[in-house]
């Protein structure tokens, strides 16, 4: 087990597109253990993606289960994840282990379904909403070389849920 070094903006390697995982062996499971230890060592991250530690494979860890009142699928290892359905959109504030001292507003789908393999190679489909769906989209972006700063919208663009105005 080891805490791995996190790549930080403007490291060009964060823009690299990661390759699919093809072998589900012990090496993969060892790496996932290190990746999880790295996530836990940082500032309360709900997810981490392999390219953030310089391994350019499609591996994501997601865990929003420790947050109060947040629908979730528990601790998830998502290998070669693929979002197969999107619905709705909302703006929310995001930060990133790879982008210290900056948070910004990003529009994400509010409900998604995604397919992914687990560390043993088994294929699963997950339904996600809200915060967990946002976290999954944020992490999968890393696999495609995208950071949330590539998607930040103006703070003035108010796409939060609106109330009907009674005149």
């Amino acid at each position: 087990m080891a805490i791995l070094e996190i790549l930080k903006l403007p490291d060009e390697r964060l823009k690299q597109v990661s390759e699919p995982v093809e072998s589900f062996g012990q090496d993969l499971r060892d790496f996932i253990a290190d990746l999880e230890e790295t996530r836990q060592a940082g500032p309360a991250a709900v997810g981490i993606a392999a390219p953030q530690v310089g391994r350019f494979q499609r591996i994501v860890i997601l865990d929003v289960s420790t947050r109060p009142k947040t629908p979730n699928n528990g601790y998830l290892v998502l290998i070669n994840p693929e979002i197969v359905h999107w619905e709705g959109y909302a703006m929310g504030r995001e930060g990133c282990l790879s982008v210290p001292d900056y948070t910004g507003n990003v529009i994400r789908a509010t409900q998604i379904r995604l397919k992914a393999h687990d560390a043993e190679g088994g294929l699963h489909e997950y339904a996600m909403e809200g915060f967990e769906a946002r976290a999954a989209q944020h992490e999968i972006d890393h696999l495609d070389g995208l950071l949330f700063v590539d998607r930040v919208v103006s703070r003035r663009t108010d796409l939060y849920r609106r109330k009907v105005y009674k005149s």
Partner: protein
Amino acid sequence: MSEWNLLTLVGADRPGIVSRVTRVICELGCNLGEASMIRLGGNFTIMMMVSGEQPDEALLAALAPVAEEMDLRIHLDPSHGGLHHHLVPNYQVRVVGADRAGIVADVTEILASRGFNILELESDVAGELDRPVYIMSIQGYCGDTLESLDAALAPLRERDVSVDVSPVDVLIG
């Protein structure tokens, strides 16, 4: 000469203000830090942190020709840089109401009484010319619970002002 200056420029909006001003600053060898630039009521307003490599007089002298040509008013305040210390908001307050005197003071007095630190406030006047609507969005930090903040603002709702408080959930991933 301080480490950073807060430079304020205001003038009638027209294309090219930002590029002209920032080119001058760049050629002086000064860096830009955080900045807010926005059109307000037909003016273009710039407030930005400029690093203090040059004496204030040199910065103002270099900007004078652009200011003259583009009719900009300039103000320079010495400032601590304070960069890399972003405060993260935990609440968003949205206010919508028929435009009337005191709406901002009414809302922000309540927030201040709860120790709410406003990090960002934006407001607009929308609606028809003869029936203006005031829309305000505030982001800030407050140690209070959502329920008590919401209860504190509740009296405003009886006065036909729509006030909505919601948590700002920052996702770190």
